[in-house]
């Protein structure tokens, strides 16, 4: 791993709609190094995408607002940077791939035009050079007959090909940080395997850091070096992929790991599911946000918010019962049975 590229510290983001304030992110901290791939996992509404957008300062204001915390990119706090300076960073230094390749490309411009747009803005090249460059990018992401493809419109591409175009655009200025927001969720498994392999290859070539947002733990195991598990806008657990896989500490992480269907899952057994659903973030959550769904809940969980404790080097967890002095033992299949009827 290289030096630290991005450090997010104690970030709070809220969205105001009418008189309702939704606290989407409540104190998220993490760091990302060069050449590292960080996986952010969690359910929908856990704040994965908001965290990513905040890192690129893409949160629309209003209604959204970064209320406190810092986002330090290469030693510079960008959380209060003005828009014109941000624009120079975006695309050039950091870029993003979105989940749905169908809606993130402009349907009325050719793929070549959209590729050249970011190259010309950030690299100050002539039209001809930009065209050369975009051709090279398309070839790099493995699009056959790239020269003809440049003149085509997004609707003439399949989903996987469009995602390749998105990756080509995102990488066209050799950014140091690539944020991938569920890049393969909308794709078939066969195409997913292709795209993940491509991203790994390109990382090796350019040495960029990747922030991979996903809800598929398989994707994390396959591509990431470290992982943060988010729930209700907070980091529940963070560590290296192997630390979290070998010794998951938070009951929510246990639930997430259990509810993935394994290839040797006995189909006669009931799947372990996490009963209930995440809390409504427009109300203040007192105590641990996972308390209502946690099979190990005790009084203290509802009263005070657990602090983040480092158990091992780099492995942190926010749970009252997982500290350096006490340890929670994982009940085997704690919530089976509650799953089918719990709503």
């Amino acid at each position: 791993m290289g030096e630290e590229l991005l450090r997010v510290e104690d970030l709070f983001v809220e969205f105001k709609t009418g008189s309702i304030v939704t606290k989407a992110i409540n104190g998220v901290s993490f760091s990302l190094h060069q050449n590292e791939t960080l996986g952010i996992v969690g359910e929908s509404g856990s704040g994965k995408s908001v965290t990513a957008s905040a890192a690129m300062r893409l949160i629309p204001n209003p209604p959204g607002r970064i209320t406190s915390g810092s986002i330090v990119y290469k030693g510079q706090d960008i959380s209060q940077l003005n828009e014109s300076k941000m624009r120079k960073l975006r695309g050039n230094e950091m870029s993003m791939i979105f989940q749905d390749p169908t809606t993130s490309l402009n349907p009325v411009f050719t793929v070549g035009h959209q590729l050249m747009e970011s190259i010309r803005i950030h690299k100050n090249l002539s039209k001809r050079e930009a065209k050369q460059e975009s051709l090279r990018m398309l070839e790099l992401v493995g699009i056959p007959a790239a020269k003809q493809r440049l003149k085509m419109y997004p609707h003439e591409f399949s989903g996987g090909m469009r995602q390749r175009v998105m990756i080509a655009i995102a990488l066209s200025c050799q950014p140091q940080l690539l944020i991938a927001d569920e890049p393969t969720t909308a794709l078939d498994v066969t195409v997913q395997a292709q795209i993940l392999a491509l991203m790994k290859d390109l990382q090796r070539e350019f040495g960029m850091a990747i922030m991979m947002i996903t809800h598929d733990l398989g994707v994390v195991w396959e591509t990431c070096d470290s992982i943060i598990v988010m729930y209700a806008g907070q980091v529940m657990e963070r560590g290296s992929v192997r630390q979290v896989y070998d010794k998951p500490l938070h009951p929510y992480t246990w639930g997430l790991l259990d509810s993935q269907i394994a290839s040797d899952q006995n189909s006669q057994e009931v799947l372990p599911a996490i009963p209930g659903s995440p809390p409504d973030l427009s109300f203040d959550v007192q105590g641990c946000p996972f308390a209502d769904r946690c099979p190990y809940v005790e009084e203290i969980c509802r009263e005070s918010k657990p602090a983040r404790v480092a158990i091992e080097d780099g492995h942190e967890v926010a749970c009252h019962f997982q500290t350096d002095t006490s340890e929670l033992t994982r009940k085997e299949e704690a919530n089976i049975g509650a799953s089918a009827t719990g709503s």
Partner: protein
Amino acid sequence: MGHPLLEVKQVKKHFPVKGTIPFVPSRQSVKAVDNVNFHVMPGETLGIVGESGCGKSTLARLINRLISPTEGEMNFKNKDLVSLSKRDLRTVRKNIQMVFQDPYASLDPRKRVGQLIEEPLVIHGVGDSVSRKRRVAELLEIVGLNPRYQNRYAHEFSGGQRQRINIARALTLNPELIICDEPVSALDVSVQAQVINLLKDLQKQFQLTYIFISHDLNVVRYMCDRIAVMYLGKIVEIGSYEEIYHSPKHPYTQALLSAIPVESPYENKERIILTGNVPSPIAPPPGCAFHERCPFVMDKCKTETPPLIETTEAHRASCHLIKKEEE
């Protein structure tokens, strides 16, 4: 073995394509479902897997007769579904219900949940309003929702709860066959497990038969007794889940299985990465439709369409390689 609940024989669905010349009908068509044969036994779960565009959903809509097949025969409890009159179709449809993928789009936002679940009863003229209300409350309980939620609207529920409402609607008329078209793809993993457990529970409780369509191979393996793999409108392999997962015969099935993400950071998977794209269903390649992407392609594959060959009992695959093994 008794009689199959549903038999599908040589069913085709071709959608005509708009031609390039105005007012001149085009001769081209999208062969969304092409010569599909299978049967479903009562009480079993048949999984249908394949990439997007392979005809999974079209097949589901054909079985429900939401669309009519271009050719072929479909028998449900020995009744021919294709030739039924509109009126008879209604009674048959009571027995074949569907759960759709998107729990946000499949519930009318202007109706209360009680009304949504009651609707099938009203349409089919079942019971009076008191008994219908009782049935609605009972159904909500069955799918694990509080019966007091009847007066709420769909937007007040989470994705998983909405899918429960959809399942309650499908159960209203006591169907025998439920077609689940990607019922858990739009849900989070933790909620996904809840809904899958519910579906399994209901199957036991009401002796339901499922046709389970999904692109998530682990979900299919967990849910299904038998699995059919589709590619470009055709079934390329069909068999029990053990057979398909432990000894897949068709190269496409092998590639699909190898593409499943790993289960631990220590696992290093040998991948068969497919090159190229799914060919156009308007002009599928001659011979085996998979030959352009197949790692084991032979000359024969480019000209001859392989038939579905029985490898072991109840396991069939359509690939020229299989014959070679036997020789």
